[in-house]
């Protein structure tokens, strides 16, 4: 690899992998980005009742999860929900 390569953007192999990862999430979910957006908004609504969350930083994805004992994998809904503040439940 020459010095010039270091300044180049990502290699095309990495680009391919990144694109595929994103693409397969929606392929596997078999639901449109619209539906994912609706699920996301509903999650925000429900969790917000109990604590203050960072709606901008919320991320949901359909991924694969390994089953125990090497029995293949199943789709899983993965949600990363950053909490800003734990509201005290009794205050409501």
């Amino acid at each position, binding site marked *: 690899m020459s010095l010039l390569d270091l300044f180049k953007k990502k*290699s*095309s192999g990495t680009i391919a992998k990144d694109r595929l990862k994103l693409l397969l999430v929606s392929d596997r979910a078999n639901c449109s980005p619209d539906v994912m957006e609706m699920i996301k908004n509903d999650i925000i609504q429900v969790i917000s009742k109990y604590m203050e969350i960072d709606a901008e930083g919320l991320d949901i994805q359909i991924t694969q999860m390994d089953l125990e004992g090497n029995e293949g994998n199943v789709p899983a809904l993965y949600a990363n929900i950053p909490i800003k503040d734990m509201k005290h439940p009794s205050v409501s």
Partner: protein
Amino acid sequence: MSEVIVITSGKGGVGKTTTTANVGTGLAQLDKKVVLIDTDIGLRNLDVVMGLENRIVYNLVDVVEGNCRMKQALIKDKRYPNLSLLPSAQTRDKSAVSPGQMVKLIDSLREDFDYILLDCPAGIEQGFKNAIAGADRALVVTTPEVSAIRDADRIIGLLGANEVRQTDLIVNRLRMDMVKRGDMMNINDVTDILAINLIGAIPDDEQIVISTNQGEPLVGTDCLAGKAFANICHRILGENVPLLDLEIKSNLWGKFKDIFKKN
């Protein structure tokens, strides 16, 4: 006990037929009784890749429709006494056979063979459904390209939904020079994305084209692809064989050229 293996990919042109021919021949070399079934009705190709195209009298559809007995349609490979081919029909289409008929046909072969290999057509329609109906396990063939991997992922999902109990991956047509440059996804990238067990990786090898031209599978020969296919056969039998180092240069001239390429 016989095992029924479907070789499938979703996308066309990634090497299903070549893989079927080589894995089947390789298993026969290991003294297993093997029958190859071309399920691509209307676009038969396994016969030419195997070099048996001149010996076809009856085909799969003839057997299903009762025009002949199974024995009459099976072509025995003269090079390997325990290897047979059931060719597909060229002048019919996929709807000539149903999944139920395929299961019956396969069951009638179980007694006589150790391995029944099904060469699946591209796509996910009727032909695919026919091919996977009777399968115990699947070999999914892909190449390190976005389109092939996307289709493979879809196929893996469909195989799971159809209760094929074991699905393994073959990454075909790897170009190590491009992988090294970062211009092709490597084996780990592909297995990461598809998240199924890798059973073998085949390098892009000119010898494949040559062997197909000649109608002689190259499994077991000294070239890299030949060794890679032989390894896959051993793994199918349950043996633990380490992955082939695909970077071995086949001759001194290759090494010589490589030294200069790097500069």
